Protein backbone atom coordinates (compact mmCIF):
# COMPACT_ATOMS: atom_id res chain seq x y z
CA UNK A 1 0.00 0.00 0.00
CA UNK A 2 1.27 3.47 -0.91
CA UNK A 3 0.83 6.33 1.55
CA UNK A 4 1.73 9.95 0.91
CA UNK A 5 3.92 11.13 3.78
CA UNK A 6 4.19 14.85 4.55
CA UNK A 7 6.55 15.95 7.30
CA UNK A 8 6.96 19.21 9.20
CA UNK A 9 9.46 20.93 11.47
CA UNK A 10 12.24 18.80 12.88
CA UNK A 11 10.71 15.65 11.42
CA UNK A 12 11.54 16.85 7.88
CA UNK A 13 15.14 16.08 8.81
CA UNK A 14 14.35 12.48 9.77
CA UNK A 15 11.70 11.24 7.34
CA UNK A 16 11.59 12.15 3.64
CA UNK A 17 8.44 13.57 2.08
CA UNK A 18 6.65 11.57 -0.60
CA UNK A 19 5.03 8.24 -1.34
CA UNK A 20 6.09 5.42 0.96
CA UNK A 21 5.22 1.73 0.69
CA UNK A 22 3.75 -0.25 3.54
CA UNK A 23 2.35 -3.73 3.74
CA UNK A 24 -0.17 -5.31 6.07
CA UNK A 25 -1.24 -2.23 7.92
CA UNK A 26 -4.79 -1.00 8.25
CA UNK A 27 -4.79 1.80 10.82
CA UNK A 28 -2.83 4.77 12.16
CA UNK A 29 -1.57 2.91 15.25
CA UNK A 30 0.07 0.30 13.02
CA UNK A 31 1.40 3.02 10.78
CA UNK A 32 3.04 4.76 13.77
CA UNK A 33 4.64 1.49 14.92
CA UNK A 34 6.01 0.87 11.41
CA UNK A 35 7.36 4.40 11.07
CA UNK A 36 9.03 4.18 14.48
CA UNK A 37 10.66 0.91 13.41
CA UNK A 38 11.94 2.42 10.18
CA UNK A 39 12.99 5.69 11.81
CA UNK A 40 14.03 4.91 15.39
CA UNK A 41 14.64 8.62 16.07
CA UNK A 42 10.91 9.20 15.72
CA UNK A 43 10.17 6.82 18.60
CA UNK A 44 11.87 9.14 21.06
CA UNK A 45 9.99 12.21 19.85
CA UNK A 46 6.64 13.74 20.58
CA UNK A 47 4.56 13.97 17.45
CA UNK A 48 1.03 13.98 16.07
CA UNK A 49 -0.42 12.64 12.85
CA UNK A 50 -2.97 14.19 10.54
CA UNK A 51 -4.89 11.94 8.16
CA UNK A 52 -6.05 13.74 5.02
CA UNK A 53 -5.73 17.10 6.81
CA UNK A 54 -7.59 16.01 9.96
CA UNK A 55 -5.72 15.70 13.23
CA UNK A 56 -5.66 12.07 14.41
CA UNK A 57 -6.95 12.01 18.00
CA UNK A 58 -7.62 8.27 18.18
CA UNK A 59 -6.77 5.25 16.02
CA UNK A 60 -8.17 5.66 12.49
CA UNK A 61 -8.35 3.35 9.45
CA UNK A 62 -5.77 4.03 6.74
CA UNK A 63 -6.35 3.19 3.08
CA UNK A 64 -4.28 3.27 -0.12
CA UNK A 65 -3.43 6.82 -1.18
CA UNK A 66 -4.03 8.39 2.23
CA UNK A 67 -2.09 11.56 3.00
CA UNK A 68 -0.42 11.35 6.40
CA UNK A 69 1.20 14.40 7.95
CA UNK A 70 3.73 13.84 10.74
CA UNK A 71 4.00 16.87 13.02
CA UNK A 72 6.33 17.60 15.94
CA UNK A 73 5.14 19.91 18.78
CA UNK A 74 3.98 23.26 17.43
CA UNK A 75 6.18 26.32 17.93
CA UNK A 76 4.43 29.24 16.33
CA UNK A 77 4.31 32.77 17.69
Amino acid at each position, binding site marked *: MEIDIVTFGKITEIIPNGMMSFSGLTDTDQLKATLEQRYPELAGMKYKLALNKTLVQENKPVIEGAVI*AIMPPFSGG
Partner: protein
Amino acid sequence: MANYRKKMSDKRIKNIFIKGPVSPSFIADSIGKHSSKTSIGAHQIFLGQVRRDEVDGKTVTAIEYTAFEDLALEKMHAIREEIFGKYPLTCMHIYHSLGTVKSGELCFFVFTSSAHREPATQACAEVVERIKKELPIWGKELFEDNTHQWKENK
Protein backbone atom coordinates in the same frame (compact mmCIF):
# COMPACT_ATOMS: atom_id res chain seq x y z
CA MET B 1 -23.82 35.81 22.91
CA ALA B 2 -25.64 34.12 20.04
CA ASN B 3 -25.33 37.27 17.98
CA TYR B 4 -21.56 37.30 18.05
CA ARG B 5 -21.43 33.68 17.00
CA LYS B 6 -23.82 34.22 14.13
CA LYS B 7 -21.87 37.19 12.88
CA MET B 8 -18.73 35.09 12.62
CA SER B 9 -20.36 31.98 11.18
CA ASP B 10 -21.29 33.94 8.09
CA LYS B 11 -17.65 34.47 7.33
CA ARG B 12 -15.49 32.13 5.34
CA ILE B 13 -12.08 30.90 6.45
CA LYS B 14 -9.64 33.81 6.57
CA ASN B 15 -5.96 33.67 5.82
CA ILE B 16 -3.72 34.74 8.70
CA PHE B 17 -0.36 34.12 7.05
CA ILE B 18 1.87 36.79 5.61
CA LYS B 19 5.22 36.28 3.95
CA GLY B 20 8.11 37.69 5.96
CA PRO B 21 7.86 40.07 8.93
CA VAL B 22 4.79 42.06 10.03
CA SER B 23 5.70 45.67 9.30
CA PRO B 24 5.05 48.42 11.87
CA SER B 25 3.29 50.48 9.18
CA PHE B 26 0.88 47.60 8.51
CA ILE B 27 0.03 47.59 12.21
CA ALA B 28 -0.45 51.37 12.23
CA ASP B 29 -2.73 51.16 9.17
CA SER B 30 -4.68 48.37 10.81
CA ILE B 31 -5.28 50.52 13.91
CA GLY B 32 -6.25 53.49 11.74
CA LYS B 33 -8.94 51.50 9.91
CA HIS B 34 -10.92 51.24 13.15
CA SER B 35 -11.68 54.95 13.48
CA SER B 36 -14.96 54.44 11.59
CA LYS B 37 -16.08 51.70 14.01
CA THR B 38 -17.32 54.08 16.67
CA SER B 39 -18.83 51.48 19.02
CA ILE B 40 -15.28 50.46 19.93
CA GLY B 41 -13.93 51.81 23.21
CA ALA B 42 -10.88 49.59 23.68
CA HIS B 43 -8.20 47.89 21.60
CA GLN B 44 -5.75 45.26 22.78
CA ILE B 45 -2.71 44.37 20.72
CA PHE B 46 -0.15 41.62 21.11
CA LEU B 47 3.01 41.71 19.03
CA GLY B 48 5.50 38.85 18.92
CA GLN B 49 9.08 39.82 18.10
CA VAL B 50 11.94 37.51 17.16
CA ARG B 51 14.40 37.43 20.05
CA ARG B 52 18.14 37.43 19.49
CA ASP B 53 18.64 34.45 21.82
CA GLU B 54 22.07 33.17 22.65
CA VAL B 55 22.52 29.37 22.61
CA ASP B 56 25.94 27.86 23.38
CA GLY B 57 27.71 31.02 22.29
CA LYS B 58 25.78 31.35 19.03
CA THR B 59 23.12 33.97 18.42
CA VAL B 60 19.79 33.61 16.68
CA THR B 61 19.76 35.86 13.63
CA ALA B 62 16.31 34.91 12.33
CA ILE B 63 13.45 32.44 12.62
CA GLU B 64 12.15 30.66 9.56
CA TYR B 65 8.47 29.80 9.95
CA THR B 66 6.60 27.02 8.20
CA ALA B 67 3.04 25.82 8.73
CA PHE B 68 0.60 23.14 7.72
CA GLU B 69 -1.47 25.95 6.29
CA ASP B 70 -4.79 24.22 5.57
CA LEU B 71 -4.94 22.63 9.00
CA ALA B 72 -3.78 25.84 10.70
CA LEU B 73 -6.43 27.97 9.01
CA GLU B 74 -9.19 25.50 9.83
CA LYS B 75 -8.11 25.44 13.45
CA MET B 76 -7.85 29.24 13.51
CA HIS B 77 -11.39 29.48 12.16
CA ALA B 78 -12.64 27.24 14.99
CA ILE B 79 -10.74 29.24 17.61
CA ARG B 80 -12.10 32.49 16.17
CA GLU B 81 -15.67 31.22 16.43
CA GLU B 82 -15.16 30.08 20.01
CA ILE B 83 -13.63 33.39 21.03
CA PHE B 84 -16.45 35.39 19.44
CA GLY B 85 -18.92 33.11 21.24
CA LYS B 86 -17.20 33.73 24.55
CA TYR B 87 -16.42 37.47 24.47
CA PRO B 88 -18.43 40.46 23.17
CA LEU B 89 -15.80 41.58 20.66
CA THR B 90 -16.33 44.09 17.89
CA CYS B 91 -13.52 42.61 15.83
CA MET B 92 -10.40 40.50 15.92
CA HIS B 93 -7.47 40.44 13.48
CA ILE B 94 -4.68 37.91 13.46
CA TYR B 95 -1.50 37.73 11.39
CA HIS B 96 1.41 35.31 11.61
CA SER B 97 4.57 35.34 9.52
CA LEU B 98 5.76 32.55 7.26
CA GLY B 99 9.30 32.40 5.89
CA THR B 100 12.21 34.30 7.36
CA VAL B 101 11.83 36.93 10.08
CA LYS B 102 15.05 38.49 11.37
CA SER B 103 15.69 39.06 15.07
CA GLY B 104 14.15 42.35 16.11
CA GLU B 105 11.38 42.04 13.53
CA LEU B 106 7.75 41.22 14.28
CA CYS B 107 6.32 37.79 13.51
CA PHE B 108 2.91 37.72 15.19
CA PHE B 109 0.13 40.31 15.48
CA VAL B 110 -3.11 39.82 17.40
CA PHE B 111 -5.55 42.72 17.58
CA THR B 112 -8.88 42.60 19.45
CA SER B 113 -11.40 45.40 19.93
CA SER B 114 -14.49 45.76 22.09
CA ALA B 115 -16.77 48.42 23.58
CA HIS B 116 -15.05 48.19 26.98
CA ARG B 117 -11.53 47.03 27.78
CA GLU B 118 -12.03 43.71 29.55
CA PRO B 119 -13.23 41.50 26.67
CA ALA B 120 -10.53 42.84 24.34
CA THR B 121 -7.79 42.24 26.92
CA GLN B 122 -8.92 38.73 27.88
CA ALA B 123 -9.69 37.59 24.34
CA CYS B 124 -6.31 38.81 23.08
CA ALA B 125 -4.40 36.93 25.78
CA GLU B 126 -6.43 33.77 25.24
CA VAL B 127 -6.02 33.83 21.46
CA VAL B 128 -2.24 34.27 21.73
CA GLU B 129 -1.97 31.25 24.05
CA ARG B 130 -4.23 29.10 21.90
CA ILE B 131 -2.42 29.94 18.65
CA LYS B 132 0.94 29.06 20.17
CA LYS B 133 -0.40 25.74 21.47
CA GLU B 134 -2.86 24.64 18.81
CA LEU B 135 -1.80 25.89 15.38
CA PRO B 136 0.53 23.67 13.33
CA ILE B 137 3.28 26.26 12.85
CA TRP B 138 7.00 25.62 13.35
CA GLY B 139 9.89 27.98 13.89
CA LYS B 140 13.45 27.13 12.85
CA GLU B 141 15.96 29.32 14.70
CA LEU B 142 18.82 30.24 12.39
CA PHE B 143 22.27 31.06 13.74
CA GLU B 144 24.89 33.30 12.15
CA ASP B 145 27.07 30.31 11.17
CA ASN B 146 24.21 28.80 9.10
CA THR B 147 23.42 26.12 11.68
CA HIS B 148 19.95 25.95 13.22
CA GLN B 149 17.81 24.54 15.98
CA TRP B 150 14.06 23.98 16.07
CA LYS B 151 12.20 26.41 18.28
CA GLU B 152 10.31 24.99 21.25
CA ASN B 153 7.48 26.90 22.86
CA LYS B 154 7.66 27.35 26.61
